[in-house]
């Protein structure tokens, strides 16, 4: 198997860039963009967690041949990410509908125009 690339460095760069882009979007004034930013950030966090389970093992299901170096991929992080994906999905759905309601109430989804501070 090709080992020409360094997983840590690549993962670190990829996750760093994803978080950067997510952050950049969170700072925008368009609510939808902010939600994209949050989505990217949470996707990246999930990828990070899976990465923490070490790549290159075999599926964490018994009764299936082990193909990767004899070790089984960490099932715990997968379970955690599953939970996180589901929760993230719930909140994303909510924030999208919230955005819709923000638009209904304010006539805009420009965060700069949502009115004064409290």
């Amino acid at each position: 198997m090709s080992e020409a690339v360094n997983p840590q460095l690549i993962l670190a760069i990829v996750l760093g860039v994803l978080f950067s882009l997510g952050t950049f979007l969170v700072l925008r004034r368009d609510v939808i963009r902010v939600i994209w930013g949050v989505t990217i950030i949470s996707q990246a966090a999930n990828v990070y967690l899976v990465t923490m389970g070490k790549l290159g093992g075999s599926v964490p299901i018994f009764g299936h041949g082990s193909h990767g170096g004899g070790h089984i991929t960490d099932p715990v992080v997968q379970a955690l990410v599953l939970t996180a994906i589901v929760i993230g999905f719930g909140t994303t759905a909510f924030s999208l509908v919230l955005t819709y309601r923000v638009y209904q109430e304010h006539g805009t989804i420009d965060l700069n125009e949502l009115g004064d501070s409290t």
Partner: protein
Amino acid sequence: MLALVMLPFAAAVVTPLVYRVLRERTAYYAAAVALACFGMVASQLGTSGSVSYQWIPSLGVSLQFYVDGLSLLIGFLASGVGVLILTYSGGYMHGEPGKAKYYTALLAFMGSMLGVAFSADLVSLFVFWELTSLSSFILIGHYTDRRSSQYAARKSMLITVSGGLFMLIGFLLINHVAGTFAMFGPSGILSPENAAMTNEQLHAAGLFVPALALIAVGAAAKSAQVPLHIWLPNAMEAPTPVSAFLHSATMVKAGVYLIGRFRPLFLPEGVHVIPDWMLLFAVLGLVTMTITAILAVAATDIKELLAYSTASHLGLIVAGFGFASEYGAETGAFHILNHAMFKAALFLVAGIIAHEAGTRKIKHLGGLWRDLPITAAITVVAALGMAGVPPFNGFYSKEFLFESAYHAAHVHGGLAWLFPVVAVFGSIFTFLYSIRFLMLFFGEKPKGLGHVHRPPLTMLVPPAILGTIAALIGLGGVTDTFGIAPSALNGFVGSVVESTLPPAAHAEAAEAVHFSYHLPTSVTPAATMSAITIAVGLVAYQYYDDLHRGINRLLTVNPLRANWWYDNAVYGLNDASVETIPHVQTGLLRTYATWSLTAVTLLALGGYAAAGVALPSFGFAAGMTPSLALVLGVAVVGAFAVSIAPSHISGVLTLSILGFMVAIFYILADAPDLALTQLVVETLTLVIFLLVLDRLPTFYGEIKRSRAVRDGVLSLAVGTTVFVTVLVTTVADPANSIAQTFLDYGVTVEEAGGHNIVNVILVDFRGFDTMGEISVVAMAALSVLTLIAMRERGETQ
């Protein structure tokens, strides 16, 4: 003892009920309570010692009470003057609103004041202390509609309650070194046997000056010492009986009481450099006495005059206690009593004037003796006492002040000579305003002033009693001059003095405190100073109006007025809040996110730096394949495209690239469950996105270059944080991760009965997580429902 302190509180609690029955006669109920207290205080006369009731044993806090001269003095004032004031209130408050609250607060105040007087535990002292401030707040704000009442009440609360907090910290410092809150008793910090040790401990811990200063702030705030005196004149917004009771006779005495109380602790014996104590309190007292006397001359309202006068006399007492000599102690102890008598009387007189003449303006008043002869007689005794004219009571205590000032100057020399000079200078102004007050009853009656009614008996008896006592005290000095000493009074004041003496003095001469007072029989320095005061005062009185105007002109210079500083601070704070907060709470999410993410970055990177985590050398660990790298690359490209997407729909679609790439990543990372979940969730998210996008405007939000740069920097910082986090955590390889257990066939398959470890974790090992997770999903549904169905109900809240 507990009964004594608790009785007024208990009586206060039922006052609203009592009021329903007794209505106007509630005053007599309250006065009866006060009288009972007075009786109980009197029953303690001649006794001393402490009693203790557990309150918070694990904190070492108890309700501990202690009886000695000083506490009895304050106790007598609180209950005795209380009886008179409450009786007087029966007449004064007739027909006024809010009487239930009024008597409740007054009784609670009396209880608090008794608590302050008799508390022998620092914490319980503080408790009662703040309760006096609180009842004062309520009473000053009695006329709740008036702006000026509100202003006054808030000012007094801010200053006295805050001052109390300083004092509390002082107490805590003492507790820190002494390990106890007890003031008296075997381990009490003020007990003669312990005071010196506590003093040393404070010095050793370097906390002597801080503790002293903090307690001084508390005392100064309560006793209206410059520059914290400003609340007292405003406090005259309270009904006059309250002014007489709280703001002249009792509550303001709490501060000087505190100084007297702690005098044995902080005042060392036999020091020939000026001790910190004296430097602090003698200066503070004399400065206050002088400045507020000058301000009293500038007063245009009789209650204002009396208020400044009160501050001035409190300054006198503070200065007295400040002087290290026994004369100093005698000054303080005796003047507390004298001042309470003449000032309470004068306040009640002022109340009669205001009530019956309908005005409190000095220039509108005059020649009142014709209409109010008895009141005039009382005023003569009280005002001359206040002026320090022999043989009236104030004269004697002022003699003690002069004596102690001179003594201090004599002992310490140099700048200490300013003590007697300032004392005399201040006393001249005291003389001036006292005479001015007296002159309200003499001379011509101004034209505008109509017929002045006689006050009801309930309003006349109390000041008469006070005046009589003042007169009797004065008379005692006269008789003593001829060898007939008022021994009971002397003994009592002696016991008060004793309470304020440092322990060494106790040790040397257990019964050395021999208080007596009389008219000067030879030309002593003090007598000379009195003579100068009266002589210069008589001359200067001719120019009273000029002085009055001159001082007022001076007061137009804002920075000279402490009130100007106060108002600027308070309203400035308000303005600062209104100005600043919108810059912080901008209402803009980007501001919030910027701050929060900056903090996240700083903290995390700070954590790594502080721990000295080295970035690992990049090894070639297994797992990364070209396809994985490609997929991650596409994910980044997708995310990048999202951030520059030209429209909502294209952004959403581009975001799906990321979603798909993450799904592939999960496949290649051997996480089929995750890949499935990711894909189904991705699809449904897209559907919801589309459902919502339909209804949204196409807003693209042009990005300004400057913004982009700033946001870019922050984004990079966040990215760097994550980059470092990934690098430092991927190298870790803990030996016995909990995952090992789940990889055990025996556990997962045989015990839990499933082959898919992830699923077994989800529904069994960590099924509780899933329980929470589905709660979130259900709530998401409820939330969407709420968002839509509760629409148009926003107006109701």
